């Protein structure tokens, strides 16, 4: 039942005026004192053990065997749970596009991304669990790898064996008449861009504590899962029990989420299954390496977008071709990232003719998930880059071009061609306001002066629409109308809150959300205080979810900016019900009609009279004297506000869907300078105006904007998840995945436009994604302006910017691609090299020396043992220290293509705790004169595991040093009297350092 006054933002009857003030946050005190309780601070179950997760070093492989005997023999180790164990206890995780892939939260017989879990070790503590992890012996059979989404889309390499195509979803959409729009266009402009994968990296990682109750066949799971709680039936379904048998409890505090902690759901399934398999409660706290490898990074998107423009710059139509990289599995909620903006494909512009082709492709990368912005940065980047380039081509000022296309104030509320609803605001006015805030005209003048001096200077604009309070149903736009008709209807964005009084007359608001720093409790107290006439300090707030006790639904949780757009309305509705009851009670007590009662400053009083009664007394009375409530009212005070936004429906038969309840316009303008020589970007000015309607707490809003901007700057300038061609993750630590720091932040000018929404009871829209969406685009546009180069891409780090300035591909490493020769296609050749060495003796002598096993064992650097196990097949144990990382490697070496004594091919692989390598070398021997041989060699090798993360710069040097040492030894063996040049000796000694371990 909808509430009266719902679609009308109305000022509260009490006029306490708390909403809109920057009252300090109540969350702060425990946090500042170090008393807040995050998941790793909790110990709900006695006897809980700790888990460590063994993860695949390979991007694609078959698990041949796993032997946990040595691990299980260790004292303090309780269990080693494999994928097969988990598959026996769980059902596969469903996916929204019915892709024929069986997905568990752990690999069962194949791994599909580096970092995928393969076993869970349960031990007394995490230290021991990691020790045991190293003793689980897994044998992999490596399979072909494909990490590039464009390559994956050709299906040259199957990401999943037996799955016919890597493109697991493809749909086209057509709204209006795009063909006609393009036919009548005066100008067509196109852009092709990549949006990189990034990850929002909250400083607190994932945490799960799980217990299985064998008596009840039920699970209790504590975690920092953020919701939406549609995850709950997914988890229960996977665990093979009814939803009522899974109790999920949120930790009281969460250290940041930004969407990322939706992905906790997969680990909730995993650890719950592990607790069941191991028969003991289990706690798992993710470490940072795990988080960067396998938590939740955003999709990467390759987009080609075309705009049909009139000569005056009116955008008549859009053609959008999106290729979405979701990683190795279709893990829920995908393809939601792609469909998040589906209802609002026009962005902030009045364009009604839109054609879309969407494709979702698998790659051997970690599965994607929610991150800050969630699909919007990926969509608006091409759209706003298109507008920028169009302005340039059409000779229209970029600001003016936006003005000519923004949805007009008079057109609000504006129903988008693809079903969304822009609920209000003055888009042109807000952009104008932004231009004034930024001093746009002055910025243009400064830019032009700087250019006259020979500097690279640019101005960028980004205008986008941030959706909030998502519809549950928008991902169903991925299905065809026929598929939708065949499945059950989905809709909604339900929000629920309950306000109750206790026996002391104090009020408590309970709202099922999982705040991770947004100040929900503070803002809720302000809202309730205004409605019932108390101070916020007098309102207790519980923002947590316990599925056994909270009034939650599958839409509950902290995601999609739904707090201010939807949750706050539920709280206000609950508070209004309480206020109404208090007025009846007070009226009865004071002898006047309820309409004459006002609730103000803690009392209920008759308007214009002195008589009053304390609200606290009324509230307590509802407990203590519950049989004597006036007017047949129920005893106690406990009112639930339910906000059922009926406008959030399933996609219709024309694939139109209202994806979200409110739409926040955001305008950013930036002025940048580029150092032509070093590629460094400096931001001279950054201005942002958002229209979030009613501002509930200005300081909290500002904090969200600044934090979002920091995320956006990171994506713009330095953040990108990187894999090498073999699928090794290169950004495995904060040393390589770079986050913005305090001295990276520019000065930011913040303005607000405030046109309240009429979609809810507070007039507030969502915020939170904010500048994380706009900053990358704004800066990219500014750089495109500065460099007069449409090929601008992000992250705009110094090397990439310089490369663009100098006509080079920012990501190409030419020396890496210069393969000197081709060989085994199973070896990519990440490391290649060649060289020549003169050796004493005729070829036949050198040949004999090369393959004399006992001598070879002494010559090969770090070799502890060398055995010929079969003719031409050797096994060796070698200790190597690579860039300070020392480990023992077991090597298998094969000699093939023998053409004695002239040529031979040596192939091999080496495996150790720190990584593995495989390679091949071709060697030829040519006589020089009577007593010397020229040996030429060429090699190609791939490296994986942690050693690969060290980076090719180190490995190239190391290999060269090892080769030099080998030849030094060989030379010495062939002619013990030959003097070694002092340089060679020094290098030789140094390589001894290398193989025996050095460095500090």
């Amino acid at each position, binding site marked *: 039942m909808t509430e009266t006054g719902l679609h009308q933002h109305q000022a509260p009857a009490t006029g306490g005026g708390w909403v809109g003030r*920057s009252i*300090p*946050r109540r*969350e*702060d*005190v425990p*946090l*500042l*004192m*170090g*008393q*807040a*309780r*995050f998941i*790793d*601070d909790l110990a709900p179950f006695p006897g809980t053990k700790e888990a460590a997760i063994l993860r695949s070093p390979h991007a694609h492989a078959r698990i041949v065997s796993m032997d946990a005997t040595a691990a299980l023999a260790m004292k303090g180790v309780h269990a080693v749970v494999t994928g097969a164990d988990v598959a026996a206890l769980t059902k596969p995780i469903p996916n929204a596009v019915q892709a024929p892939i069986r997905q568990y939260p752990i690999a069962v017989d194949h791994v599909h991304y580096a970092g995928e879990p393969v076993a869970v070790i349960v031990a007394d*503590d995490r*230290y021991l669990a990691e020790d045991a992890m190293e003793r689980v012996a897994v044998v992999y059979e490596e399979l072909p790898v494909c990490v590039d989404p464009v390559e994956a889309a050709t299906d040259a390499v199957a990401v999943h064996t037996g799955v016919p195509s890597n493109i697991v979803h493809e749909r086209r959409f057509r709204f209006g008449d795009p063909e006609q729009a393009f036919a009548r266009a005066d100008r067509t402009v196109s852009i092709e861009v990549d949006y990189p994968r990034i990850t*929002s*990296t*909250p*400083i*607190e*990682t994932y945490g799960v504590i799980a217990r299985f109750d064998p008596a009840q066949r039920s699970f209790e799971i504590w975690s920092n899962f953020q919701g939406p709680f549609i995850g709950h039936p997914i988890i229960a379904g996977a665990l093979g029990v009814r939803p009522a048998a899974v109790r999920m409890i949120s930790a009281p*505090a*969460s*250290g*940041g989420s*930004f969407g990322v902690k939706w992905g906790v759901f997969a680990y909730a399934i995993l650890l719950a299954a592990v607790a069941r398999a191991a028969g003991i409660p289990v706690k798992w706290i993710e*470490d*940072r390496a795990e988080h960067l490898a396998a938590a939740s990074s955003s999709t990467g998107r390759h987009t080609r977008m075309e705009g049909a423009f009139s000569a005056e710059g009116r955008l008549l139509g859009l053609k959008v071709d999106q290729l979405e990289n979701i990683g190795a599995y279709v893990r829920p909620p995908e393809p939601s990232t792609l469909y998040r903006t589906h209802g609002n494909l026009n962005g902030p512009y009045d364009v009604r003719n839109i054609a879309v082709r969407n494709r979702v492709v698998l790659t051997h990368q970690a599965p994607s998930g929610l991150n800050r912005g969630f699909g919007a940065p990926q969509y608006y980047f091409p759209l706003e880059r298109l507008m920028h380039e169009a302005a340039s081509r059409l000779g229209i000022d970029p600001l003016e071009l936006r003005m000519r296309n923004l949805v007009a104030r008079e057109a609000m509320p504006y129903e988008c061609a693809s079903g969304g609803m822009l609920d209000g605001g003055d888009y042109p006015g807000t952009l104008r306001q932004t231009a004034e805030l930024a001093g746009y005209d002055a910025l243009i003048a400064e830019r032009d002066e700087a250019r006259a001096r020979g500097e690279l200077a640019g101005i960028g604009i980004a205008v986008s629409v941030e959706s909030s309070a998502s519809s549950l149903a928008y991902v169903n736009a991925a299905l065809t109308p026929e598929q939708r008709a065949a499945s059950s209807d989905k809709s909604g964005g339900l929000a629920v809150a309950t306000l109750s009084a206790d026996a002391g007359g104090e009020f408590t608001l309970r709202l099922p959300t999982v705040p*991770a*720093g*947004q*100040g929900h409790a503070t803002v809720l107290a302000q809202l309730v205080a205004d409605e019932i006439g108390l101070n916020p300090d007098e309102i207790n707030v519980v923002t947590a979810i316990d599925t056994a006790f909270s009034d939650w639904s599958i839409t509950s949780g902290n995601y999609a900016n739904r707090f201010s757009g939807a949750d706050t309305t539920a709280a206000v509705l609950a508070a209004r019900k309480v206020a109404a009851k208090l007025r009846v009670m007070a009226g009865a007590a004071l002898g006047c009609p309820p309409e004459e009662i006002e609730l103000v400053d803690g009392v209920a009083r008759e308007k214009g009279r002195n008589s009053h009664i304390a609200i606290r007394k009324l509230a307590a009375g509802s407990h203590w004297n519950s049989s004597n409530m006036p007017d047949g009212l129920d005893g106690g005070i406990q009112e639930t506000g339910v906000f059922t936004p009926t406008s959030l429906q399933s996609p219709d038969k024309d694939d139109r869907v209202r994806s979200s309840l409110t739409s926040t316009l955001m305008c950013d303008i930036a002025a940048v300078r580029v150092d032509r020589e070093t590629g460094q970007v400096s931001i001279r000015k950054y201005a942002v105006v958002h229209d979030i309607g009613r501002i509930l707490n200005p*300081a*909290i809003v*500002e*904090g*969200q*904007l*600044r*934090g*979002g*901007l*920091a*995320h956006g700057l990171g994506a713009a300038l330095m953040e990108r998840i990187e894999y090498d061609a073999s699928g090794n993750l290169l950004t495995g*630590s*904060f*040393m390589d995945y770079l*986050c913005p*720091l*305090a*001295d990276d*932040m520019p000065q*930011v000018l913040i303005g607000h436009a405030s046109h309240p929404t009429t979609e809810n009871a507070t007039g507030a829209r969502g915020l939170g994604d904010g500048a994380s969406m706009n900053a990358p685009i704004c800066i990219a546009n500014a750089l495109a302006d500065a460099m007069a180069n449409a090929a601008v891409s992000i992250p705009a780090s110094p090397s990439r910017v310089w490369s663009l300035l100098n006509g080079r591909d920012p990501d190409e490493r030419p020396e890496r691609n210069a393969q000197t020769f081709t060989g085994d296609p199973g070896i990519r050749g990440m490391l290649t090299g060649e060289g020549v060495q003169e050796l004493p003796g005729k070829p036949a002598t050198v040949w004999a020396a090369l393959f004399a096993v006992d001598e070879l064992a002494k010559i090969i650097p770090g070799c502890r043992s060398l055995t010929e196990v079969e003719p031409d097949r050797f096994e060796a144990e070698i200790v190597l220290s690579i860039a300070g990382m020392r480990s023992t490697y077991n090597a298998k070496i094969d000699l093939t293509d023998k053409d004695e004594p002239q040529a031979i091919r040596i192939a091999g692989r080496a495996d150790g705790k720190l990584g593995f390598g495989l390679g091949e070398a071709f060697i030829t021997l040519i006589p020089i004169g009577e007593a010397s041989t020229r040996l030429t060699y060429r090699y190609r090798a791939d490296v994986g595991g942690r050693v690969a993360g060290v980076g090719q710069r180190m490995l190239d040097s190391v290999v060269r040093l090892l080769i030099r040492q080998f030849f030094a030894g060989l030379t010495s063996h062939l002619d013990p009297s030959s003097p070694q040049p002092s340089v060679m000796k020094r290098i030789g000694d140094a390589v001894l350092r290398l193989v025996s371990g050095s460095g500090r």
Partner: protein
Amino acid sequence: MTIDADQEIEVSFTLNGKPVSARCQPRMHLADFLRHRLHRTGTHIGCEHGVCGACTVLVDGQAVRSCLIYAVQLQGAEITTVEGLGTDQELNDLQKAFREHFALQCGFCTPGILMSATDFLGSNPDPSEDEVREFLSGHICRCTGYEGIVRAILATARARSAP
């Protein structure tokens, strides 16, 4: 005298002004020792490789990454953590400034920054904004965009040096 890897030894030091003691193996880092042996969970772990700064505490008055120092190294040291800044009843001036300037959101990185700032302000009583941002670059915050933190630290410095 070498302590064997699997040997547990008693580590004793002064924590927030009081003597404490617990047992651990040599390899347990101070952050884990504080959290899991002494049950002071105010110090948080964000990366365990010394970049994020969340685990920063004071050792003999100086800001130190507690994930990069082993408990066994701290025999007899004086350690201050976030729990030692104010009292049960009251936040100290720096903590109050953080609240006043909205310098925290999720609060997970906050204890480390508070301890770091305590050291920094002790040796830099009158810092410029640039100096504050530079020292703050040893901490990653993903929530606030750093503005409130900078304001809070500058405000505290000004207030402390006011006559």
